[in-house]
């Protein structure tokens, strides 16, 4: 892996902010002292193991727990008949064991609680559940009679939008492409499976939860268990990834709290890997129709992006895959829309760059097809279509450096030497190709609070103590926030102590939407500035009014991803040879952790392009791939040469820290860059992912 230029530059400077500071918790993690949710074991802790519905749709008619309760060490079997009654949460997927309804295979119908993990698991296997089964449907088609236009898609975006007259522009365009791209469901599969330990101490609930945000967890538990938020402490000190699947509470914390309440014991619930696909969310499948009308010079007259997707019958979640087409390219007529059908499937949710990862795959492959059709270089095509203002809203961009990313990436990748003809390069048995795609992700920010306290200045320890309920899900958040504080206070990094990951700390939003550092950092920055300016000893701030006072700009990060692939001429096995990303994401606050975010996202994009895939069984319902032997995330051998760079971007219209968010943009664009490279290598377009040998093998 090459060392990034930016890293080299920053090592020679004095600035704390931007420097490649080491992760503060790195030592604790590699020595095993960092404790994750499942590693908190209060005295007298019992273990819960959920029982999943074995039918795809229907209701529970009876639960026979006699065999389970006869096992030594059995404590309780909770079902909809005896579990604690819960208040209704905003997210109905958490309203567990309250009714006999089974909305999909894998929905939890009971919780076994035993003295040990082994007992709880054996109990769960011994619980006999009978069902009244009803017909089910898990098959998404683009002509499903249940499809409807949702008012909103995920993120609060309007479901359908039109600017200009798409139909007229498309009809009149000299070059018209009508293309359909299909994506299967995907799963987040963070390294640390979801887990929670719950303890009731008097009327106070303490929950150790693997979560991307302890504040939303405590708020949800307060609603469900009828408590004041002050009666709840949620701890998420170390979290082994989430990729969106821990963005809001998930079943383990609810089950653990219920089990603990029912048994008057601390209860720990650790989901085995196999349970994750059914209950923590997935990236919904999409069928995306792209209609592009182009003029001879490559400028777009019409852009249509219509998305068909599924949700569950439990709640509406609409993957906003058409939304990036409201941002990326100027066209006189733009139509974007979503249709969704509620099927008897597990509930989809956030997975790294929801909407953008899926939508930009289709849009950026379609742009490649336009370039091929017009015999234009795909970079030149994109440069000719970069809009002056955000096409959908008409707002000015706060900053826009897609062109710089494309040009800088082309220079680093050696794009000018590329022969555009597909299917013409060989290295022995391997067909070779290169591809490019643009990347984008919106700049999101949410109000946060934070506090900073000046400590004794006798040199015996840190001089300042920052407190904020940020969550470090492995990204380096606590390190970057300490850098922001040190920079603002004008002190070395080790003069700052920082506490994150507990709802007892000042309230803060979750680590999601690439908004964490911007949101928490804004509050930390403000608190430290006020402390410095006031000379006081402690300051607590709230950025609500600051966030609300932001000017009207379209704020987005952009990037360009370049891929070189080989496709085996005999087997159709596609492997990436080189992957390069160049991003414009505002100010980069820590060169080391930023680089990890970019290449991590790109690796996940590689998985989306080439290896990752989940299937719904149409007869049984539910997902088939349940472990990491069957759900193929990329291995090291799949990622031989990956590199990320960024351009200096100074955007005065962001939060005072100046970053745009970097957690998600790395995945966006990568699948299309790889898919376009596969076309360049083989001369064939597949218009679906992953590009596994079943698609690519020559027949």
């Amino acid at each position, binding site marked *: 892996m090459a060392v990034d230029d930016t890293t080299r530059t920053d090592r020679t400077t004095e600035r704390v902010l931007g420097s490649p500071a080491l992760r503060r918790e790195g030592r604790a993690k590699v020595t095993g002292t960092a404790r994750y949710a499942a590693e908190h074991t209060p005295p007298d802790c019992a273990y819960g193991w959920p029982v999943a519905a074995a039918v795809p749709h229907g209701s529970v008619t009876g639960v026979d727990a006699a065999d389970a309760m006869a096992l030594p060490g059995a404590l309780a079997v909770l079902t909809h008949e005896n579990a604690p009654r819960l208040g209704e949460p905003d997210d109905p997927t958490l309203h567990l064991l309250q009714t006999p309804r089974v909305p999909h295979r894998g929905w939890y119908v009971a919780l076994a609680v035993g003295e040990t993990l*082994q007992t709880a698991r054996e109990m769960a296997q011994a619980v006999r559940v009978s069902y009244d089964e009803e017909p089910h449907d898990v098959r998404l088609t683009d002509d499903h009679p249940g499809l409807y236009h949702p008012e909103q898609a995920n993120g609060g975006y309007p479901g359908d939008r039109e600017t200009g007259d798409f139909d007229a522009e498309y009809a009149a365009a000299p070059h018209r492409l009508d293309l359909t791209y299909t994506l299967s469901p995907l799963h987040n599969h963070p390294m640390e499976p979801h887990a929670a330990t719950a303890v009731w101490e008097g009327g106070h609930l303490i929950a150790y939860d693997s979560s991307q945000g302890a504040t939303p967890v405590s708020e949800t538990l307060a609603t469900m268990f009828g408590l004041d938020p002050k009666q709840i402490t949620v701890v998420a000190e170390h979290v082994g990834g989430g990729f969106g699947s821990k963005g809001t509470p998930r079943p383990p914390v609810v089950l653990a709290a219920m089990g603990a309440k029912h048994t008057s014991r601390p209860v720990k619930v650790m989901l085995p890997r196999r349970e994750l696909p059914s209950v923590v969310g997935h990236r919904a499948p999409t069928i995306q129709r792209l209609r592009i009308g182009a003029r001879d010079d490559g400028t777009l007259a019409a852009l249509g992006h219509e998305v068909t997707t599924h949700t569950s019958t439990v709640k509406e979640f609409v993957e906003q895959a058409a939304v990036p087409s409201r941002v990326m390219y100027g066209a006189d007529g733009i139509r974007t829309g979503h249709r969704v059908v509620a099927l008897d499937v597990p509930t989809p949710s956030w997975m790294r760059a929801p909407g953008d990862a899926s939508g930009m795959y289709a849009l950026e492959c379609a742009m490649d097809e336009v370039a091929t059709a017009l015999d234009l270089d795909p970079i030149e095509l994109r440069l000719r279509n970069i809009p002056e203002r955000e096409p959908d809203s008409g707002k000015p961009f706060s900053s826009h450096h897609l062109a710089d990313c494309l040009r800088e990436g082309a220079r680093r990748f050696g794009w000018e030497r590329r022969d555009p003809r597909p299917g013409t390069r060989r290295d022995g048995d391997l067909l070779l190709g290169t591809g490019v795609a643009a990347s984008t992700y919106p700049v999101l920010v949410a109000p946060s609070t934070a506090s900073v306290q000046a400590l004794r200045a006798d040199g015996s320890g840190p001089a300042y103590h920052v407190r904020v309920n940020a969550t470090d899900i492995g990204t380096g958040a606590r390190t970057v926030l300490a850098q922001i504080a040190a920079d603002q206070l004008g002190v070395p990094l080790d003069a700052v102590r920082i506490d994150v990951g507990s709802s007892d700390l000042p309230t803060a939003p979750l680590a999601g939407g690439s908004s964490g550092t911007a949101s928490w950092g804004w509050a930390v920055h403000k608190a430290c500035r006020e402390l410095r300016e006031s000379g006081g000893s402690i300051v607590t701030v709230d950025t609500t009014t600051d966030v609300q006072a932001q000017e009207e700009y379209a704020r987005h990060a952009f990037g360009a991803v370049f891929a070189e692939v080989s496709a085996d001429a005999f087997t159709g096995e596609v492997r990436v040879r080189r992957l390069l990303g160049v991003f414009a994401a505002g100010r980069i606050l820590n060169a080391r952790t930023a680089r990890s975010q970019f290449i991590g996202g790109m690796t996940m994009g590689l998985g989306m392009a080439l290896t990752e895939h989940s299937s719904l069984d149409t007869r049984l319902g539910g997902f*088939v791939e*349940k472990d990491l*032997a069957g759900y193929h995330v990329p291995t090291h051998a799949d990622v031989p040469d990956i590199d990320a760079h960024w351009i200096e971007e100074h955007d005065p219209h962001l939060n005072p820290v100046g970053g745009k968010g970097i957690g998600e943009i790395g995945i966006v664009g990568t699948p299309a860059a790889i898919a376009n490279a596969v076309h360049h290598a083989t001369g064939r377009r597949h218009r679906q992912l992953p590009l596994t040998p079943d698609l690519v093998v020559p027949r």
Partner: protein
Amino acid sequence: MKPFTFERATSPEQAVSAFAAQPHARFLAGGTNLVDLMKLGVETPAHLIDVSKLPLNDIEPTPEGGLRVGANVRNSDLAAHTAVCRDYPALAQALLSGASGQLRNLATTGGNLLQRTRCPYFQDLTAPCNKREPGAGCSAREGVNRDMAVLGHSEHCVATHPSDMAVALAAYDAEVELLGPEGDRTVPAADFHRLPGDSPERDTVLRPGELISHVTLPPPPPGARAAYRKARDRASYAFALASAAAVLALDGDGTVRHAALAFGGVAHRPWRARTAEEMLIGSRADAETFARAADAELAVARPLSDNAFKVPLARNVAVHLLTTLAETPDRPAGS
């Protein structure tokens, strides 16, 4: 997990008699598959007999010029053994293409042969599976069957055998040595695994209580070249979509003197391609011959709804493998 009793075998013979004395016993070696299945509740032995400490760790030359491999030899050690790398390259390649480094360090030769299918329905207690529960039905046949068999499957089971090593052993005409309560016997590796027929619960011809003690490789045919090629979804740690092991020896005029070809990932057992081999022997070693032979072998394939790609994939793997072997220059003597 169901509670079970455990004992450590003191000798191969004691292990066999201990098995006979206990209902629902299982031999435990590396544990890389059995323990996973016990956690899932797919395997529910009442008694485990740990055979991993038995002195079956040697790789020894046979008087005939072959190699005798103890059942407890770890996959990593077998793959790295000098004589295996030199004389049985397809076996070394097959071993190294399987699982991960960590798993290969634990997994044994005997255990590799006895690993169960990775069919996801077999592993899911809530899905009907004839292999797990005879008579329950097969979920894979009409389910998600992209990774399932295209050859030799039955209405009762469409699972594949996951081993890479076993495919190479089949092509090398290896033999599996068994100790049993009713005496010792030897079974050709190519016939050790079964087709599912109407009893898919039986993966192999092993009789109750029999223990694998060794695998014996005959001397490689004179002048033979051999290799293993595996097509898979990712570069490492993925089961074969289709694989092939080939052992090929040519006469001076370019005709095939010896040909052994076995497919993996396409059937309930390593699929020894006897039809193709018969066509090859005595024929000219060129790509057209290889293609004709592979097509003839795969003419009996019966793809399911999602796995028709496995037929051209297996064909291409075999043709490419044989062509590459035919074009490989002879190794200088003594190297």
